[in-house]
C-alpha cells in the first residue's frame, strides 16, 4: 500500500522530530511523524521499571530547553508541568561536607572560591549568549558560502568581538582546551572543580583532561542563559515532555503514527521519496526529515551504497560511542546521604570527589572496561513528584560514568558486576541505601541503544566535540540539515547544535526545509 498525501515525513517522534514537525505543520505543510515506539519523546521518556515505580528512562532532568521553542509550541498549554525547577547542584562529599551550587552562589567553599565562581558564572553566561545566537541558526559552510552563511559567520565574529577584549580572549583561549586546566585555573576546592568537570564530560567519551570538555561545559550553560538557575524535574517524568511535544505537534496539525518503525528510506532515482515501514507499508512525501541519529539515518535507513564513498567514510567515522549508563532504583524510603540536609535530597547530586577521580574513571573506558569507581549524576524525582512511586516510596535515577558501549568481554557478563560497583559506591555516600532497594535496573549504552534507537547509546547521537560540532556537525556534506541525498534532512541531536532536550536542531531543520523548498 502506498500513501502519498504528505508533504513531509519525520522519522522519529523524539523531541527534535516533534519540534520540526510542529514548525512544518505550522507552515501549512501536511506532516506525518512515524515513531517506532508506542509513545513520543524518544529519550525524553518515562517508563515503569518496577510495578508502581516510574522513572525517566533516558534524560532525567530538563537542563536547557530553549524558551523560544517552548513558547512557540505552547508546551505548557500542552501539558508540560514542572514538579520542581531551579534545582541546586550538590557536589557530594563522602565525609558529609558538600558544596552546594545555587545559580551563581556557592556554599561549602572558601570566600575566594565563592567570588571566583560568581565571576566564572557571569563570564560563562556571556559565552552562552554567544553560543545561543549561533545555535539558533543554520550553521554556515566554510567553503562555497552563500550570503546568508557569510552573514552568520560575521554575526558570530561580531558577537565574540563585542564580548569585550578580556572575555573574547578568554573564550578563544579556553574554547578548545580541557575543563581540568580551566577549573584548576579558577578554583581551589576539589569538590567544586570536580562538579564543574562533570558538566564538561557528562554523556561524552571524555575525561576532564580531554580537549573539548570546555565546549561540553559551555553547552550546558545554555540553561543558565535561558534563565534557569538550575535543572528542572518534570512532573510525571521526562515522558511528560515527550507527550507535550507530541500534543503540540498534533495541535499544529501534524499526524503521529506510533509503533511504526521505519525499515528504510524509500529512494527513487537517487532521491528520498518516502519511507518503508517494517510492516512493508510505503508512505511517500516530498521531503523526509530524520530525527534518527546520522549513522542510523545515513548508514542504515538510506544505506552506504546510496551515498558517495567519501561521505560514507565520514558517516562511518562519526564518533558515537556512549559511555553513560542509567541506574534506576526503586527505594522503600528516602535515602539519607551523609551530612546532606533532607531539603537537598531532591536536588541534583553529583558523586565525583575530585577531577582525578573522574579522569581515573574515564581511563577504564578508554580500554573497554567499566569504571572501578564511577562518577554519577543522581536525582530522586519522587521528592518533588510523589506520583512516580507508591506512597512513601521513592525512585532514584542516576547517570553513571563510565560504562563503555564496547565492553571487553561483553555486557552480558559485565552487567551485574558493574551494577554492584555502582551500588557499593552509592552505599559509601548514602549508608543503608542498598537495603532500601527493592528493584534495581542498570541500562548500559547497549540497552539505551536498543531502547531509544540511538547508535552507541549516545545521548547526543554522536560525540559533541569541536570536530563534530557547529559547522562540522555531524560531518561535512550534511552540516546544514540537508544531506547529500536529495529530499532527505536531519533534524536530531546529530545535527547542529546537538542534543540535550533543547529543541533547536528540530527548529533549525524545519526552517531550512522551508527555506530550501521556497528556493526550489
Amino acid at each position, binding site marked *: 500500500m502506498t500513501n502519498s498525501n504528505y508533504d513531509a515525513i519525520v522519522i522519529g517522534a523524539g523531541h527534535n522530530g516533534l519540534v520540526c514537525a510542529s514548525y512544518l505543520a505550522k507552515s501549512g505543510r501536511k506532516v506525518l511523524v512515524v515513531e517506532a515506539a508506542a509513545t513520543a519523546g524518544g529519550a525524553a521518556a518515562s517508563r515503569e521499571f518496577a510495578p508502581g515505580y516510574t522513572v525517566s528512562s533516558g534524560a532525567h532532568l530538563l537542563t536547557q530547553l530553549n524558551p523560544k521553542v517552548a513558547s512557540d509550541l505552547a508546551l505548557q498549554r500542552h501539558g508540560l508541568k514542572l514538579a520542581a525547577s531551579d534545582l541546586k547542584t550538590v557536589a557530594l562529599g563522602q565525609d558529609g561536607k558538600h558544596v552546594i551550587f545555587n545559580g551563581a552562589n556557592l556554599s561549602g567553599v572558601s570566600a575566594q572560591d565563592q567570588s571566583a565562581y560568581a565571576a566564572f558564572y557571569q563570564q560563562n553566561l556571556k559565552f552562552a549568549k554567544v553560543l545561543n545566537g549561533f545555535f539558533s541558526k543554520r550553521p554556515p559552510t566554510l567553503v562555497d558560502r552563500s550570503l546568508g552563511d557569510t552573514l552568520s559567520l560575521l554575526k558570530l565574529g561580531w558577537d565574540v568581538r563585542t564580548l569585550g577584549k578580556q572575555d573574547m580572549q578568554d573564550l578563544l583561549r579556553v574554547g578548545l582546551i580541557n575543563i581540568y586546566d580551566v577549573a584548576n585555573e579558577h578554583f581551589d576546592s576539589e569538590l567544586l572543580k570536580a562538579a564543574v568537570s562533570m558538566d564538561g564530560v557528562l554523556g561524552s567519551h571524555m575525561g576532564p583532561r580531554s580537549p573539548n570538555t570546555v565546549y561540553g561545559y559551555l553547552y550546558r550553560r545554555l540553561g543558565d542563559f535561558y534563565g534557569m538557575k538550575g535543572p528542572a524535574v518534570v512532573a510525571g517524568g521526562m515522558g511528560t515532555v515527550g507527550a507535550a511535544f507530541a500534543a503540540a505537534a498534533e495541535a499544529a496539525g501534524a499526524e503521529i503514527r506510533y509503533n511504526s518503525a521505519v525499515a528504510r528510506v524509500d529512494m527513487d532515482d*537517487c532521491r528520498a521519496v518516502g519511507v518503508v515501514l517494517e510492516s512493508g507499508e510505503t508512505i511517500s512525501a516530498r521531503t523526509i526529515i530524520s530525527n534518527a541519529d546520522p549513522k542510523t539515518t545515513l*548508514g542504515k535507513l538510506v*544505506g*552506504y*551504497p*546510496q*551515498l*558517495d*564513498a*567519501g*561521505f*560514507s*567514510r565520514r558517516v*562511518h567515522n562519526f564518533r558515537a560511542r556512549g559511555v553513560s549508563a542509567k541506574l534506576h532504583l526503586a527505594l522503600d524510603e528516602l535515602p539519607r546521604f551523609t551530612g546532606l540536609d533532607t531539603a537537598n535530597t531532591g536536588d541534583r547530586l553529583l558523586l565525583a570527589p575530585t577531577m582525578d577521580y573522574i579522569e581515573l574513571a574515564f581511563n577504564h573506558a578508554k580500554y573497554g572496561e567499566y569504571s572501578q569507581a564511577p562518577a554519577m549524576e543522581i536525582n530522586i524525582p519522587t521528592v518533588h513528584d510523589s506520583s512516580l512511586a507508591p506512597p512513601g516510596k521513592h525512585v532514584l535515577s542516576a547517570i553513571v560514568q563510565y560504562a563503555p558501549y564496547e565492553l571487553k568481554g561483553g555486557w552480558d557478563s559485565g552487567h551485574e558486576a558493574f551494577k554492584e560497583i555502582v551500588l557499593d559506591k552509592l552505599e559509601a555516600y548514602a549508608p543503608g541505601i542498598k537495603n532500601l532497594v527493592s528493584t534495581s535496573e542498570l541500562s548500559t549504552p547497549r540497552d539505551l541503544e536498543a531502547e531509544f534507537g540511538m547508535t552507541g547509546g549516545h545521548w547526543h547521537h554522536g560525540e559533541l566535540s569541536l570536530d563534530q560540532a557547529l559547522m562540522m556537525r555531524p560531518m561535512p*556534506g550534511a552540516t546544514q540539515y540537508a544531506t*547529500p541525498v*536529495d529530499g532527505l534532512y536531519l533534524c536530531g541531536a546529530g545535527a547542529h547544535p546537538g542534543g540535550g532536550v533543547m529543541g533547536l536542531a528540530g527548529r533549525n531543520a524545519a526552517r531550512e526545509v522551508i527555506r530550501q523548498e521556497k528556493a526550489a
Partner: protein
Amino acid sequence: MKKPHDEDMLKYTPFHSRVKAMCQTNDWTLWAGYTTPNSYENIELEYFAARNSTGVFDLTPMTKYRISGPDSEAYMNRLVTRDVRKLKPGRVGYTVWCNDAGMVHDDGTIFHLSEGVYRLCAQERCMDWLQCSAMGFDVEIIDETEAVAGLAVQGPTSCATLRKMGLEGLQNLKPFGITTFPFNDGELTVSRTGYTGDLGYELWIAPQHAEALWDALFEAGKDYMIRPMGSEALGLVRIEAGFIMAWEDFVPAEQMVRHGRARSPFELGLGWLVDFKKGHFTGRKALLQEQQNGSRYRFVKLDVDGNKPAEHSFILNKAGDVVGHVTSAAWCPTAKSNIALASLEMPWGADDDELFAEIYYTRELHWTRLLSPCKVLNGPIYEPERRRMTPAPNY
C-alpha cells in the same frame, strides 16, 4: 657483500631475467615499486614494432584488484561511472572512477572474469578507496598485482604471433573480449585489450609461468619481427592513440594536494563513460551539477603545425591570452601528425577557435620560440581498421 639499497627496495617483475637480458640500453625506471625499462634498444625501433609488427610490453606493475562476492556487481556499479551491469562475463570495459566531488581518481579497465568476479586494472594503487567504497557491500577485495604477471602483445602481427605460439582460435576473440588457454600446467588468460590503439592483446598468467611464456612468445614471434618495448615507446603510441595517462594528463584526485587541480570525466573528454541512468554511484550528484552548470575545462586533441613536439606548451588564443596547456605531446610517426593532448579553460577549444601552441626548442644551445597554429581534432588520430576486425587479420 650487502646488496645496494636500491636493489633491496625495488621489486622485479617475473619477466625480469628476460627483460634484463634484452635491455641493451640499461635504461631503467621505477614504476609502482618495480624496476622496468624505459627502452630496450632504440625507442624508434620499439615504436615501429608496435605499429608494424609486434611490440611486447611488460605491464606486470599495473595494479590489479580482484573483486568478488554476492554484491560485487552492485559494488562495481557504485564505484565507477559506467553501468557495470552491461558488462557481460568474459568482457572488458574501460572506465573511470571518481571521488564525491566527481573528480577522477583514476582510469582503468574492468575485467569481468566470470559471473560476479571482476578484476580492476589501474595505474594507481587504490585499496584504501576500494575498501572505503565497500562499506555496505558484501564483497571481497584482493590485491593481486603480484599474483598476476602481465604482458601486452600489440601490433598488426600480434594475433599471428600468438596463434603460432599455439593460441589457435584467438583470431575470433572480439575487441574487449577475454578468453583462456592452457599453458604448460597452468592457465593463460588473454584479453583483446591494449594501450596502443591497434590490434593487440594482453596476456595474464601466474608468475611461475612468466619466463616460459616470454620464451614461447619470442620464439613464436621470431618471424613476425617481435620486439620488446619500453615505457618511452609505449608513451609515444598511447599519445598517438589519444589515450590519457594518470600524472601526465590528470592528477589522481585522491593524491591531489592543491584544491581544484583534479579533473572530472567531462573535463577529460570522457563524458561518454558517465551513465546517470544506472542509479547511484560516487560522484553522481557532483557530475550532474557539473553537467547542468558547465565544466571548468575542456580536454582536446590538437594537431599542431610543424614537427616540434608541443611538450608542456601553453595554448594561446588569437589575442595572445593563455587559455590552457598541453599535458602530453609527441610527433607521431604513423599518424604523421604533431599531436598534443591539452586541457583548455572553457569555453576555449570549440571547433573554430584559433589556437596556438607556444613551443620552445633548442638546437645546440640556440633557442627558438614558435607560436604554432593548432587545430582541434574531433575524431581518432590513429585507428587502423584491424583494431576492430573480428576475426583478427593474420598478417
